[in-house]
């Protein structure tokens, strides 16, 4: 996004709205720090600019800048998934897709969240390590699409410096690898340059229990009690 310097009256109303704090007050006008802006669109959508000075320049939609908007603005759609958002439908439709089957866990690492943002290249710190573990990244995920080669976890050079509000790394692991992969992630996280929020997806056991919680606790990972539950209403129901 940009602010038309001819129109801006420097009222500063837009400043607090930017989640990245990228709007800066100049001498007489406000400006958007082009490098820090993630193109989330909050300023243009939500700020009632009295002179309508905020605009989306054509460069926003030019590669590689264009990835900022698709990762940061939930109203934009990823062309390769057809789904809005930063990841897949994950657990939302698992009763119908069987994306995560019994005996497997889905893992999603959302870089830049909450509210900090990330350079796409920063996720390599973890994706390279995961690739060494022969993790197969979710092919329908937009971040996988930006990898030079999903087998290495390396992000394409031209998008590496692009800053986004968040990007999700998604993959599935066999149940028996839980401790090994999670420990690897925790170890690597201590060296990571950015922040990430982390989730694990699992089927309920037939008796309704979630043994994964105790297994994670055993390796020092505490789960949040606030969980997202697929209640099993989707049809056709696809069993494993």
């Amino acid at each position, binding site marked *: 996004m940009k602010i038309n310097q001819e129109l801006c009256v420097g009222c500063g109303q837009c400043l*607090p709205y930017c*989640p990245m704090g990228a709007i800066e007050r100049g001498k007489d006008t406000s400006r958007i720090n082009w490098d820090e802006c993630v193109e*989330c669109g*909050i300023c243009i959508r939500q700020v009632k600019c009295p002179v309508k000075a905020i605009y989306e320049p054509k460069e926003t939609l030019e590669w590689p800048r264009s990835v900022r908007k698709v990762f940061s603005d*939930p109203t934009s759609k990823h062309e390769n998934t057809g789904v809005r958002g930063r990841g897949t439908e994950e657990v939302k439709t698992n009763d119908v897709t069987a994306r995560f089957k019994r005996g497997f866990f889905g893992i999603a690492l959302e870089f830049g969240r*909450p*509210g900090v943002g990330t350079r796409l290249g920063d996720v390599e710190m973890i994706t390279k390590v995961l690739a060494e573990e022969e993790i197969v990244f979710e092919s329908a995920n937009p971040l996988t699409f930006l990898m030079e080669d999903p087998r290495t976890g390396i992000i394409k050079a031209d998008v590496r410096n692009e800053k986004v*509000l968040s990007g999700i790394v998604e993959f599935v692991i066999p149940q028996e690898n839980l401790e090994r992969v999670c420990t690897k992630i925790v170890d690597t996280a201590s060296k990571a340059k950015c922040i990430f929020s982390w989730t694990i997806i699992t089927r309920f056991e037939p008796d309704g229990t979630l043994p994964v919680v105790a297994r994670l606790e055993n390796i020092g990972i505490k789960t949040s009690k606030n969980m997202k539950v697929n209640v099993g209403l989707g049809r056709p129901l696809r069993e494993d």
Partner: protein
Amino acid sequence: MTHSLHRRGTDEYLKNDFTLLVTAASGVNHIGSREGMSKILDAVWEIGPTNIGSNETGTTLSGVTLEQIRSGFTKVPRIRCNFGSKGKAFAAIKKLQELDTGMSVTLSGPIEATLAMCKEYGIKPHSINLSLDVWGKKDKLPAEEVLELMTMCGHGLVGRTLIEETMEKVRQGKLSPQKATVKISPLCICGIYNTDRAEKLFEKCVPSK
């Protein structure tokens, strides 16, 4: 009185950061303590602290003189100062030991070096206030109460600056919790922003609560 605790940083930065507090205990040994405190002030000044503070006058860094601090001593005098080197901080402790004024002394700094110094000087540490660090929050993250409001928009579109500014307005009575909620929740266009919970969270900022 834990304002010298919870300093954050790497060992590299903290190894030369010592805060010295010399305090008369009100009702116990404060009567007649000004003379001893005055001596301590001179001794500390001579060693060369990075700063000496005083709630009454301000700090030496802000241009206050030693004499102003001295004349500003209350009935229960206190000296608060910081040293930028371990050597100076320990020299101050040595000096305090020699002056033997009976005032309470606390030194905030890296524990290993401090305990070794005590042993060397023959001082038996009395008690300790240990920071257990900040839990569950990472360096780039705002305060927990801000996160509570931030994380209800999972797309991160309700930014910390706006929340912090809005919370401040509620604190100042310029916005009601309800108006504050109406101000920030439109940013999360998905509609999963729980306005009821947001209002309750803002209510915690209302001055009387």
